[in-house]
């Protein structure tokens, strides 16, 4: 794993990967969204408002996946002192927060015609709002105290502590009577009709690849920034 601690080696892998993730991700999102918006059937009760599912589910999935990635990177950073883990964790924070906001906004737009309200303080909705605030706090902390381009150890600890919220979000609809429906796709199968399901899966994969591309771009940006800083310091010393 430490082989890729060398930025040159990492960059030689990240550069083509960014491009492939981006192209493949955008292609899948185009296919999934076009099918979902124009060809997939309307829902029995929700009608056309069901189509926001194709954006809502992938964004919230990545909102939770983003923090899970931050927590894993934080453990790797603290245990192995891997320099790229700190850079990766920092790179995930802003897109993670953005996707959380998108998930909340699309959910709210869906809730108005379906539930009859823009917002409720139920377990699922509130715990995702908490996730959004955790992201904001993490970003503030990461930018206030960076080490060699990555996040500081205090920020890494915060990343691990914040992971507490992920199982709570996942279980919120099971533990508490919630207005949000329980999970449709579980290990046991899916209660989403296959006509809705496949464009949804295409979009989930597409958005995940796009997210990966954004994170790789941001990692490359952070590494380039550190390089510039180091060079400027050397020039100033000479």
């Amino acid at each position, binding site marked *: 794993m430490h082989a890729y601690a060398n930025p040159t080696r990492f960059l030689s892998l990240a550069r083509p990967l960014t491009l492939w993730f981006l192209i493949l991700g955008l292609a899948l999102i185009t296919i999934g969204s076009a099918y979902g918006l124009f060809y*997939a*059937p*309307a*829902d*029995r*009760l*929700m*009608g056309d408002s*069901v189509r926001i*599912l194709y954006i809502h589910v992938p964004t919230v999935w990545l909102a939770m996946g983003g923090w899970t990635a931050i*927590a894993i990177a*934080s*453990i790797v950073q*603290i*245990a*192995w*002192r891997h320099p790229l883990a700190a850079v990766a964790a920092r790179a995930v924070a802003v897109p993670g927060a953005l996707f959380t906001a998108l998930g909340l906004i699309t959910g709210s737009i869906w809730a108005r*015609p*379906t*539930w*009859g*309200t823009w917002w*409720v*303080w*139920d*377990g699922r909705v509130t715990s995702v709002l908490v996730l959004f605030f955790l992201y904001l706090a993490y970003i503030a902390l990461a930018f206030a105290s960076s080490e060699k381009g990555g996040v500081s150890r205090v920020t890494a600890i915060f990343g*691990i*502590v914040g*992971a*507490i*919220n992920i*199982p*709570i979000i996942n*279980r919120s609809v099971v*533990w*508490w*009577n*919630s*207005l949000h*429906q*329980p*999970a*449709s796709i579980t290990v046991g199968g899916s*209660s*989403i*009709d296959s*006509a*809705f399901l496949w464009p949804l899966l295409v979009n989930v994969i597409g958005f995940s690849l796009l997210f990966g591309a954004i994170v790789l771009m941001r990692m490359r940006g952070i590494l380039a920034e550190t390089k510039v800083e180091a060079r400027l310091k050397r020039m100033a010393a000479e």
Partner: protein
Amino acid sequence: MKAKHQRLALAVLALVALVGAGLLAAFALQDQANYFYTPSDIVEKQPEVGQAIRLGGMVQKGSIQRADDGVTVTFTVHDGASFQPATYTGITPDLFVEGSGVVADGKLTADGLFVADTLLAKHDENYIPRELEGIDMTGNITRTDTLVE
């Protein structure tokens, strides 16, 4: 034990302790964090007349009755075990149909009727295309007349 492993063990231990603490706290919150009470909860806890409560459950099939004024609707909420008659005056959400989930804010009157001030519809985890309407998962034909009104 190498320093690296010691750090890993500490980090994992901290994570496990934190998640455990979070789960315990969430579990303890079970009653307070409930978004609504089911009809069975109302039977069990006997809320006072006039106390603000939130009722949630399924709208019993065949129970929705619209009054002549066009905006008042009476219906029965059930959770499989208990039944709670309710009434609401106002525009109902699109998903408010017989057999679907509902969450309502309101109060109980002395004669046991639940008077709702707000009414929210709850969607379940099933997504079914319109073409398959009326055919449930087991292949039985269900009532569809209520979906059109």
